[in-house]
């Protein structure tokens, strides 16, 4: 008469939540299996190292985005900010190279972090003090940063001094005990991010603010401060990503970091963080960044589709991955 099966699994809230938390990793595993099936080279050490290393940029920025999003905001300016920070860093390093030699890199890196944090601060203050939708604010600053890099490069490109290339190169191409440096940096950023988010007061309050800002406010949490800080963290992450990025391409152009904001947000959401805030899955975010990078890699490795349709296939795979979430649940 009645479907007993439906009552049977005494699936308490707990185990259900656990499964959902696993979803991004399961999706990652699926994509990897797909990759291995499509092209045997996919699992080669070099390819895996390449993919993981280059996912570092999106992953690092996405760690910051996890903060912003879990506190109930959104930052669309990260891609342009990245270009702007990169441009400023290269200009500074080029200027200092004649006097400081390769030490200019350190100054440049420090500057990158500071400028990143400041850019984030500006975003954060406009959003919180101006009480404007973050979507609009960061869309505005996205245009602003993009215009600034275009202006700085006169519409062309800002290449790094030749003399700095060799000393700076290992930051992207080097490795530490066999682990590529960007991966090491990503790991540090994620660990720091996870610690802050899950183990500190600040992280706790971030999620509370995203879950219910009113409750947070009357609990004595300064919503303004928390949210502003998430933007600063986002800016710092952009700075760190810029530090790893420069040795790879050695130049900043007006198209640097274009559309990264969408990739970053996609990584965060695939990872299980809710766009409405109140939920942060920083490890999931990393899985999300890897999934995106692997899908792009597969598009290159496989020859199934017309080059014109690559974006379509990527779109389909992402939607399927999210649908898989639902069925896993």
């Amino acid at each position, binding site marked *: *008469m*009645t*479907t*007993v099966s*439906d*009552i*049977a699994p*005494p699936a308490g*809230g707990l185990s259900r*939540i656990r499964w959902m938390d696993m979803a991004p990793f399961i999706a990652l595993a699926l994509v990897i299996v797909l990759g291995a099936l499509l092209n045997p080279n996919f699992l080669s050490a070099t390819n895996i190292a390449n993919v993981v290393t280059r996912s570092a940029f999106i992953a690092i920025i996405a760690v910051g985005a996890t903060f912003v999003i879990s506190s109930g905001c959104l930052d669309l300016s990260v891609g342009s900010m990245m270009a702007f920070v990169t441009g400023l860093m290269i200009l500074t390093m080029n200027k200092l190279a004649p006097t400081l030699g390769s030490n200019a890199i350190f100054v440049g890196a420090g500057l990158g972090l500071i400028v990143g944090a400041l850019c984030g601060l500006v975003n954060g203050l406009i959003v919180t003090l101006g009480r404007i939708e973050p979507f609009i604010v960061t869309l505005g600053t996205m245009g602003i940063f993009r215009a600034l890099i275009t202006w700085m490069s006169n519409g062309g490109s800002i290449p790094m001094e030749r003399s700095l290339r060799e000393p700076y190169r290992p930051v992207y191409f080097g490795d530490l005990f066999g682990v590529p440096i960007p991966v090491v940096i990503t790991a540090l950023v994620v660990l720091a991010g996870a*610690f802050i988010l899950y*183990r*500190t*007061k600040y992280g*706790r*309050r971030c*999620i*509370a603010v*995203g*879950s*219910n800002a*009113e*409750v*947070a*406010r*009357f*609990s*004595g*949490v300064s919503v303004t401060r928390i949210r502003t800080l998430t933007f600063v963290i986002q800016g710092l992450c952009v700075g760190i990503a810029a530090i790893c990025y420069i040795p790879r391409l050695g130049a900043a152009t007006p198209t640097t970091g274009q559309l990264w904001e969408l990739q970053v947000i996609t990584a965060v959401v695939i990872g299980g963080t809710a766009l409405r805030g*109140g*939920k942060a899955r920083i490890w999931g975010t990393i899985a999300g960044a890897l999934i995106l990078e692997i899908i792009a890699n597969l598009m290159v490795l496989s020859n199934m589709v017309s080059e014109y349709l690559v974006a379509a296939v990527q779109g389909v795979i992402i939607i399927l991955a999210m649908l898989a979430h639902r069925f896993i649940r």
Partner: protein
Amino acid sequence: MTLRADLQGLTPAPLSAARAAAPAEPGAPPPALRAEGIGKSYGAITVLSDVTLDIRPGEVHAIIGENGAGKSTLMKLLSGHVLPTEGRLLQGVREVAFPDAAAAERAGVVLVHQEILLAADLTVAENLFLGRELTRGVSVDDRAMNRRTAEVLASIGAKCGPRDRVGSLPLAQRQLVQIARALLEPRRVVIFDEPTAVLAGDEVTALLDVVRGLRARGVAVLYISHRLDEVEALADRITVLRDGRMIGTWETAQLSQRDMAEKMVGRALGHLYPAKRGAASAAPLLEIEEISVDHGAVLASLVVRPGEVLGIGGMIGSGRTELFEGLLGLRPAQGGPIRFDGRALPRRSVSAWQAAGLVYLTEDRKDRGLLLEEPLAANLTLQALDHLNPGPVLAPRREAEWLAKAIEEYDIRVRSPLLRAGQLSGGNQQKLLLAKVMLTDPRVIIIDEPTRGIDIGNKSQIYGFIDRLVRAGKAVVVISSELPELVGLSDRVLVMRAGRLVAELSGDEITEKSVIYAATSGAAARGGAAAQARENHTAAQAGTGQGAV
């Protein structure tokens, strides 16, 4: 003025009239918090004015008044949630201003809201310690916080755990979490705004004990409730508000429950409950055969007949809400068949039910009942849009008429019909919710906690209203955790326990005792044998039922 004088003539003069300017009389301990001439206006709308009130250490001070009288507003003024537009606050002899709730909490004044205000995504412990997390070094000390949370929860008889996510808890548990939050740290003034509205049975008892414990420790407690028996049992002094003004403060011993009620409403009150109609024998309107709801009611069969009030009793968490939400298609459920007026329903959904003539009024008016950001008219007509408008087009002018009619018929106290639903007082929201579902002109009305947060005068109106419906041949199912209400209103009572219907009571069998007995001990009263047998029959397949008792 004359009215007030009249009423004051009936009973002892108040200890302090609204205009009392002098601080507490000499010899009394200095007040923990004192409001002088405090008031609040929203633009041209004055919702509270000129209230002068002492709250003394070691007393329970009850605030009573009709829905919309301004009780919650007063509490929010005292606790920094809302800034006053007139008057001042004093702690001891020092004037204080609470720019926000956090400042009030730092000064030892905390409010337990009438509506649940918690971060749904966080765990119970995380909510309790939000803004004052315990740390070890830079790291949060979850172990300590969970431990402390478990203690506080245990002390107020809450059944949830510190690691439960608040969003997944039933309403009553969430209310207990709110209370736990307020009691986490030592306070000087604790304000409860209708804490028991969503609680029942043991939980109420436990809470009252907690309040007494606070008093014994010298904490000043402000306590709002529409349950006058509670007020009488608990309060040392009582302040009555009416229409945003203070009527006066009395010692509890000076007032009977009837006095309180009459001071609240400003007129004499008749009987609370209408006369019963007796068991109905007409052909059933609604027949449910064995449906089971995921994680809720295991198996339930019941019939509802026109011309009767069917009460559904049980402890909180016994699965009453789940059962009916499952019936309505609001949560996954299996089984059937379900017949309405002799016909099987094609589809289990709110709109299909509504078209057939059955509506369900939720217990959770804030998250499931009303659109707090929307105007009153939009809320009123939302459910009945198809019923009221034959075509796809709305009739704005008629909406205004419907609203005016509902305001009158259900005595919704609004200072302007242009307010948003969230700006109504809690009780008036409940009345709006009732008006909303009634607009669909249903034949069977399932009301989950019909008088949650409703003042005594309005309660009697609502009971009268239910009575009229039933006498007009409709059927009303009342799910209530308030035993007197269940007993006073129902022609027949079904009792649920741990997700199962365990007893059916009718006529004289319906007493508070028999309901409690069936709800807790399981041995069914007369007439419950069939349900009992069914329970035994299904227990084996279904495993242990969910829900705590």
